[in-house]
C-alpha cells in the first residue's frame, strides 16, 4: 500500500530533480557570460509601426545570432546581448519616458527614436544620463556641436536627394518636380530639404505645398491637383511605407506618367501588394542589400529574421547596422561599455570590416561634411528602382 507520506516524498524528490536539471541547464550559459543591455526607443504601434518594428526585429535577430554563437567578446569579458524595448507610439513625451527607463536600467546605448520630434525630445535625457542614441531622424542640430550624443543611423534625405535628382536629371531628363508630404514634422522638413536640393540643381519646382494627413486612405483627392501639373518627377517626401503604395496607385490611376521617388526606405512586398505593377519604376533609397551587393552574412541575417518573425522587412537592410556598429565599437574600445565619452573618442578612429556587403567595404563613422563631426553610421546609399516585386540597384553612393 502506498502511504500519503511516501507519495509526498516521491513528489518532493521529483520536484528537486526537475529543479536541479533546470538549474544545470541554465547556469552554465548565464554564469559564463555577462549581460549587455542595448535599448530601443521608437514607434512599434500605430500607422508608423513598420519603422520601429523593423528596427526592433533587426536588433533582436542580430542579438539572438550573437548569443547563439556564444556571445560577443568585449575586452576580457564575453557578453550575451539583451535588447530592451520601449514603444514611444511616435509621441515625444513617451520617447522621453522611454529614454528615462533606459537610464534607470543602466543602459548606455539606445537605438531610436524614429522621428524628428521624438529624437529632439530625448536629447536632454540622453546627454544628462550618459546615453549614446542612434536616431532615424534628420534634424542637423541633433548631430552638430554642441550636441554629441546622437549618431544618425541612416542616410539623411538632404544627403540622398541631391544625388537622386542629379541622376534623374542627367539620365531621365527630369526638368520639373512636384513634392507631396504628410502634414508632420519629418515629412515636411524632408520636403523642404528636397525643394532646396531640386532648386539648386536648376530643376523647376511646380508644387511644394500639397500635404495630406498621415491616416489618409484614399489619396485621389490629394493628388488630383498635382497630377494636373504633369511634373516629370513626383517626390513623396518622407513617405511612410504604409502610404507609399496608396500614393503611387492613386497617381498612376489618375493618369500620371512621370517618375515617382522617395528618400525613405520601403518594402518591396508592401509595394507589390498595395500597388502591383503600378509601382514599377518607383525609386527609393534602400539600405545595404539588394541582391547585387549583399554578402552571405546578410543573406543569413535575412534568413534568420524571416525564421524568427515569419516575413522579412526590406527596411532592415539599413536597420541591421546600428547594433553591429555599437558592438563593434565597444569591441574596439572596451572601456566604452560604461563610459560614453570613451565611445565618442572611439568614433573618430573606428573602422571594422562590413560583414553585410560583398568586397572590402568597411564600417566607419561619417558625417563630417554634413555635421562637422562624425555622428553618422556609414551605410551604403543604395538607390533602387522597384521592378516586379523586387528592388533593382540603380546606383550606390557613400556619404562623405
Amino acid at each position: 500500500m502506498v502511504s500519503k507520506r511516501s507519495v509526498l516524498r516521491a513528489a518532493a524528490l521529483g520536484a528537486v530533480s526537475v529543479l536541479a536539471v533546470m538549474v544545470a541547464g541554465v547556469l552554465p550559459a548565464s554564469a559564463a557570460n555577462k549581460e549587455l543591455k542595448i535599448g530601443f526607443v521608437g514607434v512599434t504601434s500605430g500607422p508608423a509601426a513598420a519603422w520601429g518594428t523593423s528596427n526592433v526585429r533587426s536588433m533582436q535577430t542580430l542579438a539572438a545570432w550573437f548569443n547563439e554563437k556564444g556571445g560577443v567578446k568585449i575586452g576580457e569579458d564575453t557578453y550575451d546581448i539583451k535588447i530592451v524595448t520601449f514603444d514611444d507610439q511616435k509621441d515625444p513625451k513617451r520617447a522621453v519616458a522611454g529614454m528615462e527607463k533606459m537610464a534607470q536600467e543602466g543602459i548606455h546605448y539606445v537605438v531610436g527614436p524614429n522621428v524628428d520630434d521624438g529624437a529632439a525630445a530625448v536629447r536632454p535625457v540622453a546627454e544628462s544620463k550618459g546615453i549614446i542614441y542612434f536616431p532615424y531622424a534628420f534634424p542637423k542640430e541633433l548631430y552638430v556641436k554642441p550636441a554629441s550624443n546622437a549618431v544618425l543611423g541612416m542616410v539623411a534625405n538632404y544627403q540622398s536627394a541631391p544625388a537622386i535628382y542629379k541622376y534623374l536629371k542627367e539620365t531621365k531628363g527630369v526638368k520639373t518636380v512636384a513634392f507631396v508630404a504628410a502634414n508632420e514634422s519629418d515629412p515636411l522638413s524632408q520636403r523642404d530639404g528636397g525643394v532646396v536640393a531640386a532648386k539648386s540643381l536648376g530643376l523647376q519646382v511646380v508644387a511644394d505645398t500639397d500635404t495630406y494627413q498621415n491616416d489618409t486612405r484614399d489619396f485621389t483627392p490629394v493628388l488630383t491637383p498635382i497630377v494636373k501639373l504633369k511634373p516629370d518627377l513626383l517626390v513623396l517626401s518622407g513617405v511612410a511605407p504604409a502610404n507609399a503604395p496608396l500614393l503611387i496607385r492613386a497617381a498612376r490611376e489618375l493618369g500620371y506618367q512621370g517618375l515617382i521617388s522617395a528618400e525613405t526606405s520601403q518594402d518591396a512586398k508592401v509595394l507589390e501588394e498595395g500597388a502591383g505593377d503600378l509601382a514599377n519604376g518607383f525609386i527609393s533609397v534602400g539600405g545595404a542589400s539588394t541582391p547585387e551587393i549583399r554578402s552571405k552574412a546578410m543573406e543569413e541575417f535575412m534568413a534568420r529574421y524571416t525564421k524568427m518573425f515569419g516575413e522579412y522587412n526590406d527596411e532592415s537592410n539599413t536597420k541591421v547596422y546600428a547594433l553591429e556598429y555599437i558592438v563593434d565599437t565597444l569591441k574596439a574600445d572596451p572601456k566604452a561599455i560604461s563610459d560614453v565619452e570613451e565611445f565618442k573618442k572611439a568614433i573618430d578612429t573606428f573602422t571594422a570590416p562590413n560583414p553585410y556587403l560583398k568586397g572590402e567595404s568597411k564600417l566607419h563613422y561619417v558625417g563630417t561634411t554634413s555635421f562637422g563631426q562624425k555622428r553618422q553610421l556609414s551605410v551604403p546609399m543604395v538607390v533602387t528602382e522597384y521592378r516586379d516585386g523586387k528592388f533593382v540597384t540603380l546606383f550606390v553612393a557613400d556619404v562623405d
Partner: protein
Amino acid sequence: MTQVIVNGLYLGAQYALIALGLTLIFALMNVLNFAHGQMYVLGGFVTYTVYGQLKLPFGVALLASGVTLAVVGAVFERFLFRTVIRRSLREESTMLLAAATATLLDAVILLLFGEKQRGVPKIVNGVLNTDWLIMPYDKIFVGVLAILGIAAFMAFMQFSKPGRAMRALAQDRVAAQLMGVEVDRYTMIGFAMGAMLAGVVGGLLVAATGVNSGIGGPISIKAFTMVMIGGAGVVGGAIVGGFILGMMESVGLSVLHAYGDATYLVIFVALMIFLSIRPNGLMGKPWG
C-alpha cells in the same frame, strides 16, 4: 470640377458606411464604441487573409469578415458591455471599457497580422478615363456596393422585425421593454450588427485602399466626426455626415491645396462652429 465632386461622393459613400455601425451602437446602448476603427481593421485583415492569402472568392472573404466581427461584437456586448452597463452607475465606465477594447484589438491585430500595410489584388481592373472624369473601375464597384449596403441597411432597419425592435429600443428603452421587446437579445444583435458593418466595410475597402494595423484609431475619429455632424444615434445623420465630410475633404483638398494642410483646419473649425450652433448635429435626437 466633376472629378472633385465624384471624388467627394466616393469618399462620402465610404465614410457613411463606416459611420453606420458606430451610430447604431450609440443609438441602442448610448455607448461610443472607440473600437469601431479597430473592428474595421480586423475586418480588413480577415478579407486580406481569405481573399489575398487563401485565394477564396472576394464575396466569401466579405462574408467571413462580417461573420467574424459579428461574433466579436456579440461577445463584447454579452460579456463586457452588458455587465458594465448593469453594474456601473456612471456612463463613463462604458467609455473606458470601449477604449480598453480598442487597445486590446489594436494589440491583438498587431500580433496576428504584423505591422506592414497589406493589400489584395484588384477586384476589378481598369480605369474609366473620360475628358471629365478619371475613376478606377474598382472604386466605382466599391462605391456602388457601399451605396447598396447603405440602402440594404436602411431597409432592414425599416421593415424587418429586428430592425423595428432596435428602432423601438433606440427611441425609448423602457417603453420597448414594456411592449415585449427582448431588450438583451436585440441589444446584442444591434452591437453585433454594428461590429459586422465595420468588418464588412473594412473588408470592402481593403481592395481599394489596403489595410494596416495602425489605422483603427484615426478611422474611429473620422467616424465620430461624421456621427457628430449628422447627429449621434441617427442613421440618416450618419449617412449625411459621411457625405458632407467626404465632399468637404475633396473640395478642400482641391481648392486649398496651395495652403498646405488648411483643408482639415477648415473642416474642424467649421465643425466647432457648427456644433456650437447645433450641438445635436443636423438630425438631432435618436430615432423618433
